[in-house]
């Protein structure tokens, strides 16, 4: 009986097969280091909300979202595998792939990590290859549900992986440990904005440079990170030859509007100051980021959570927000029925640059068995300029008159590692 398998399914099978096959092919231990390690992680999660016309997405890397009155299992569910080969005490090769809902609306696995690590000394390590973006605390483990307290980490507008290198230096300082890290490369990954009607923006090849200073003392960790992202590609709507670009160029203020929404060669600078505490039953994070780019309103990002363990259950509360002003540029055409449609389109084109979204989360994690945790949380989200939420109703109103809306999302997730 022939097996009907699509190229995508074959791709999925090949990636995971290679990871597990390579793992099985290696045997034995070195003196104090195994020759290899094969680990996995995953989440089986469901989300529910009852807002008509609204799609809830885990992040802006997903094409589809959870609809009203449907329990969606695809937003948070994922499966990942990681294979590390320890060639020598100083050399390691690691590959990690994750299968989750992506911008193509399928679950094809993506190589999220793939690097060679050279660690000549306990204090120094260098990695070259595909790496995770580590600009905010725990950002490089955003998809590892078991490692995190809330079901989802805050949404970032930039991709979570890049191809390049990072270098790290660790050393005791006083009673604590100092960690310095520098990274550079080119981002990888595709995004879909809330207002882009499904249009995919490819962040591939954007220059990414930055550094981190971190100091850990007892249960406290303080951290400052700064960096710059220089976007490589233009968004489709104003790519050369597009009808939208031609229409904007005809407007009196079209050139200014194009400057605002253009992504090509755009430099985005960011700084993050963060502190975390993890000692005994109490754990928490507070992170504040500032982001600026020419012609864009400055944006602030706040992220915090705190949890307290009570036996096997850890209740937690979290708050995150992204906020910026909304300095719309008018089309330059007079107002009036004859120009309403054009004027509104010009405002809508700019609204994709603005982000005003917050999320208050109340939830609990239940560690009921080794390496498995069950989580339940309720997200009370508020937005005027959504980053991840797709709200079709917004498109029926002029963007400069949008008011703050709310969305409540119920989530249940089973996180595991193996």
């Amino acid at each position, binding site marked *: 009986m022939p097996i009907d398998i699509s190229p995508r399914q074959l791709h999925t099978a090949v990636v995971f097969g290679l990871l597990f096959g390579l793992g099985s092919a290696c045997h034995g231990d070195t*003196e*104090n*280091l*195994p020759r290899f*390690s094969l*680990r996995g*992680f995953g989440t089986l999660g469901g989300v529910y909300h009852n807002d008509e016309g609204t799609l809830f997405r885990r992040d802006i890397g997903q094409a589809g979202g959870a609809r009203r009155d449907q329990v969606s299992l695809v937003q948070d569910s994922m499966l*990942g595998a*990681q294979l*590390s080969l*320890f060639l020598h005490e100083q050399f390691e090769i*690691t590959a*990690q792939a994750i299968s989750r809902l992506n911008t193509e609306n399928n679950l094809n696995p993506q190589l999220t*990590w793939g*690097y060679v*690590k050279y660690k000549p000394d*306990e*204090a120094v390590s260098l*990695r070259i290859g595909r*790496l*995770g973006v*580590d600009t905010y605390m*725990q950002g*490089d*483990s955003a998809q*590892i549900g*078991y*490692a*995190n307290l809330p079901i989802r980490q805050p949404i970032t507008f930039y991709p979570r992986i890049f191809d390049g290198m990072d270098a790290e230096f*660790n*050393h*005791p300082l006083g*009673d*604590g*440990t100092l960690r310095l890290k520098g990274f550079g490369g080119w981002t990888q990954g595709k995004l879909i904005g809330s207002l882009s009607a499904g249009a995919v923006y490819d962040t591939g090849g954007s220059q990414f440079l930055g550094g981190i200073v971190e100091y*850990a003392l*007892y249960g406290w960790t303080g951290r400052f990170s700064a960096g710059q992202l220089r976007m490589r590609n233009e968004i489709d709507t104003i790519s050369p030859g597009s009808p939208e670009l031609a229409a904007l160029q005809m407007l009196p203020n079209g050139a200014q509007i194009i400057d605002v929404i253009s992504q090509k060669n755009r430099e985005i600078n960011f700084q993050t100051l963060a502190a975390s505490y*993890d*000692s*005994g*039953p109490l754990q928490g994070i507070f992170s504040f980021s500032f982001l600026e780019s020419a012609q864009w309103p400055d944006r602030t990002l706040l992220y915090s959570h705190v949890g307290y*363990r009570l036996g*096997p259950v850890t209740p937690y509360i979290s708050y995150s927000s992204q906020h910026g002003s909304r300095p719309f540029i008018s089309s330059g055409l007079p107002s009036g029925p004859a120009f309403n449609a054009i004027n509104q389109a010009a405002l809508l084109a700019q609204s994709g640059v603005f982000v005003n979204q917050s999320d208050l989360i109340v939830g609990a994690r239940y*560690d009921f068995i*080794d*390496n498995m*945790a069950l989580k339940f949380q309720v997200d009370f989200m508020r937005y005027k300029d959504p980053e991840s939420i797709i709200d079709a109703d917004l498109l029926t109103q002029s963007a400069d008159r949008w008011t703050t809306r709310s969305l409540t999302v119920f989530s249940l997730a089973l996180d595991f*590692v193996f």
Partner: protein
Amino acid sequence: MGKRFSGTKTWVMLLALILFSASARPDIVVIVNAASNVEQLSRDDVVNIFMGRYRKLPDGTSVMPLDIKGDAPEKKDFYKALLDKNLPEVNAYWARLVFSGRTSPPLILEDADQVLKKVTLDPTVIGYTTDSGTREGVKIVYRLPVTSTP
């Protein structure tokens, strides 16, 4: 009356003895090979080594920490006494570090006997065990009192 008081006293002492024996657990001791130059570690040293922050002894020697598979009582006691953390929290911590490629977890051995044997033979490792008498070939460099049941 005096006899009755004496009986009550006996019961109280017996109860105290039972409670004491239920909660009295041997200390956890951190051990290195007897040939090591290091005589004592601080709590921060032990945290740095076992939690993957910085795996060097104060004399500059690199060490690989050893851990015990599963949820052995010694393991529960060790992390409870060192960090006031239970094992799921420790596992979540390691999931964060391992899946972001920062560092590898301690080398896992089957049981406390294997840890003791490995430390006895290998000067490049560090382990922990219960403080239950004299042990040849190893040196105690840190002591963690276990004050309550995990």
